[in-house]
């Protein structure tokens, strides 16, 4: 079989697999890819070794499929990942109004627009301009991170304290959510220092040592909350058209592309943080732009970050997918770049076409099964994944992280504060005083 057909079949298989897996709430594509990496390494050197021509396009398809179809559980089942920011509230509003199908499809159109933007606009420019900008910016990343952290913490506004008599009670009411946000950021940061300096996860699977914490911070709290206070989903309607137009798409690409681009390019910054920065920068107020922009942002964040590894002359490692590929393969030259771009384009088309049937299938599923039971099954799958890859110690880390991840959900502060797990230790390390802090914590 020629290389063309091998690549095409691999990208199709990867996309279809991840599209189906994306509908499972709480399961992150990087967990599945991590398990695949283990399998590829186990087969390495034997007669059944998997060549890069198979796993590179397959993994590209998996990231593309997941970044587009993960919208389904995020909107319909309320289990967003760390890149979601605004999707959940507007998405849930669509769901509660019986328009969950429309909400997911609008996000999918955003993903498709993101794919066009990435392949047709970013890809031709990246090899020429990104290596230069990387040379200029790489000495400044530490203070950029601190500025982002400062903006993230300071831009959270008080959600109470505007009624009632003046006094400590009113002050506390105003500051309750802000304090919860700050505590979340600091606790997550402390957890990050422990995991990045003396991770209790076994060294044999150290490449997944942050995974249990991420699962605990983002996936488990949502499952738990749904199990405790699940809302009944009203009957859902499907639609043959979407309430969007070219203007909405262009404005979504502008805001989402900026947010996703920031997240993909800067280290540790995730789609949620990028979306927040872009949201403030572009000041788009239309709810549809929020939802579609998130589709664009999520696509650029996950797929764009992965693509950066293959940009000739840049080879920037950003995001979990790129780090995992790097343990298997070192991209070299334009052939790999074209391979990945082609895979992205093909996978985007397939993933978008799968969006409608899988959304309808999921709607049927949640109509038939109890929302709490779905969340319970999702939680069981997540726990199984954590234990299978990182053992019981990983589960313990996930439990601790769950405690931190529940704080913003229950106190009404931003879930983005959980990203302190990476932002705080990495910013300290890049600024040169990380070791001083780990020394205070007696970790080094």
């Amino acid at each position, binding site marked *: 079989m020629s290389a063309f057909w091998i690549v095409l079949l691999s990208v199709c298989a990867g996309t279809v697999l991840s599209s189906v897996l994306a509908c499972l709430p709480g399961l992150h594509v990087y967990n599945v890819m991590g398990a695949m990496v283990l399998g590829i390494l186990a087969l390495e050197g034997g007669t059944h070794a998997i060549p890069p021509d198979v796993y590179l396009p397959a993994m590209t398809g998996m990231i593309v499929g997941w970044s587009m179809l993960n919208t389904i559980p995020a909107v319909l089942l309320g289990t967003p990942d760390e890149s979601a920011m605004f999707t959940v509230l507007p998405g849930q509003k669509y769901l509660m*109004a019986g328009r969950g199908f429309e909400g997911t499809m609008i996000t999918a159109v955003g993903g498709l627009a993101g794919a066009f933007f990435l392949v047709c606009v970013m890809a031709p420019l990246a090899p020429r301009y990104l290596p230069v900008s990387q040379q200029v910016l790489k000495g400044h990343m530490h203070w950029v991170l601190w500025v982002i952290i400062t903006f993230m913490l300071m831009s959270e506004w008080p959600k109470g304290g505007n009624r009632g008599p003046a006094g400590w009670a009113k002050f506390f009411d105003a500051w309750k959510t802000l304090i919860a946000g700050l505590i979340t950021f600091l*606790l997550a940061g402390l957890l990050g220092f422990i995991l990045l*300096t003396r991770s209790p996860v076994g*060294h044999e699977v150290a490449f997944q040592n942050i995974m249990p914490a991420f699962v605990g911070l983002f996936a488990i709290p949502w499952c738990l909350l749904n199990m405790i206070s699940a809302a009944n989903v009203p009957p859902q309607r499907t639609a043959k058209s979407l309430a969007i137009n070219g203007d909405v798409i262009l404005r979504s690409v502008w805001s989402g592309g900026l947010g996703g681009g920031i997240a993909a390019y800067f280290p540790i910054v995730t789609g949620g943080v990028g979306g927040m920065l872009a949201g403030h920068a572009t000041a788009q107020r239309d709810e549809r732009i929020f939802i579609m922009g998130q589709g664009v942002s999520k696509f650029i964040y996950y797929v764009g970050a992965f693509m950066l590894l293959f940009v000739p002359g840049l080879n920037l490692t950003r995001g979990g997918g790129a780090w995992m590929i790097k*343990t298997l393969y070192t991209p070299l*030259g334009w052939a790999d770049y074209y391979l990945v771009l082609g895979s992205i384009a093909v996978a985007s088309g397939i993933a978008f076409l799968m969006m409608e049937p899988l959304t309808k299938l999921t709607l049927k599923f949640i109509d038939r099964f109890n929302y709490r039971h779905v969340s319970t099954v999702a939680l069981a799958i997540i726990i199984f994944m954590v234990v299978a890859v990182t053992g019981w110690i990983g589960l313990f*880390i996930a439990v*601790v992280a769950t405690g931190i991840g529940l704080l913003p959900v*229950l106190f009404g502060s931003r879930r983005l504060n959980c990203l302190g797990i990476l932002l705080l230790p990495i910013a300290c390390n890049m600024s040169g005083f990380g070791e001083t802090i780990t020394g205070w914590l007696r970790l080094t």
Partner: protein
Amino acid sequence: MTENKQALPGHETQSSEMNCPSCGRFVGAVSKCPYCGAKVEKRMSLVATRWAAVLLATIGLFLLWLMAVKRDVPVVRLSDVQPTMNFAQIRVEGTVKTDARPFRTGTGMSFNFTDGTGSIIVFVSKKQMDAMTEQNLIPKAGDQVSFIGGLNVSDDQLSMRLLSVKDFRLTRAVAESVRLGDITEALKGTSVTLAGKVTRLEPPPEGSNRPYALHIRDDSGEQVVNFWQSEYEQIENPDALPGAFVRLRVSVATYQKQLQLKLGSARDLEILDGPPAAPAPVLSPAQKAAETYRKTTPPVSRDFSRGRASDAPALAPADITADRKGHTVRVRGRVTSVTPPKAGTKQPFAVMLRDGDASLRVTYWSSTDEFIADKPVPGAVFEMEGVVDVYRDRPQLMVESGYKVRQIEAAPAPAEAPAPVAVSAITAADKGQIRTVEGTLGAPRDLGKGTAYTLTDESGSLDLVLWHSTVPAEVRDALAEGQTVAATGVIGEYENQLQLKANPGESVRPLR
């Protein structure tokens, strides 16, 4: 208590606490309505969950911290390192293979380490380097070390980043006590202990980059020990050195075909109260052990070429054309020049590879250079793998991994320089011929890509040109105005003036 308001259309099926009692909108788990600000009463379960979460987070984090602090970091053999161990914090124990070398950028240093089963490059941050300098922990070849580091495993690179200086345990290699007259090239690459009387301390000339020269003598002979300004500043009483008896530990190297003794740290220098006892010329057990160590065959490095279906095709420089842009290829050729980036710039290294009449420009970044075990030098044969690119309409090779730069054949020893001739004896008929001239250097003149000096002897003067791409920086930096040198090069002509173009390598040698 607020009276429950009628739920809005579409929200009828929700339990009452999911909707705002004031405006009837769906509010989910929040306790204050984001639309109207009304307080939303929740059942006990959510309130309890909040405090349970706070409790879980703090107690769990404390337990995790205790676990991390009390846990022993596992000792891992380098042969057991797998790609799934990327980011792992492990302890390794073994021997330092090469002296620690600071980065050109001043951001830290690196050294190569082996535990007998494999070898790895270890990166040390600037802050850690400063702390290690202060504690005399800078690793030198042969030292035994044990430390904790963070692993970085990628497809073809394996490296570690030192986690903490506090956990860095170092046992200095046994340094043989040798008499000054017994130091030969056989000791190259080792550390030795010397003792003797300082006859002279020669500071570097004003404005030059040369090191200090400490002349010491014992019964068997005299040697010069070199060290830099930073070490000089650390010596407690440098004024007491001339005439004093000293004991010092130095590393033996060669520079410009001559033995060089380098003092790595001021802590390795001890001023004695009186004459030291002369070391026995016979080999001690420690010396024998050190001898055995020197003869040990270095372990075969691990193969990190996983994941590649096949090696990139091997081509000659003549086969590299613009049509191959984007292709990954291996090219073998003799290095004709090496141009490092100019100080303060982010330029790449540029190496010219030649095979027959064809030559190819190869470039790589400083970050890649740090991983190259044997640095390219003019005259050596190298094989390099990279991606073909086009620069100013000419094909060039961009190397992206230091592990893809391999020395195939070391640079041949330079041919015996011809006997010195007087400047006045050089005529236009000598153009293209190799000549050696002994003379005094005039003021240096910057040529952009090179430096020119006026070389004067008793019979006349001519220009000596040193191109940066062929003459190593160590050679160029050792030259200063007023110095007497022997220069070997090719006679050329520029603007009707004869000039001596210094040969590649160590072609200009200070005489006094």
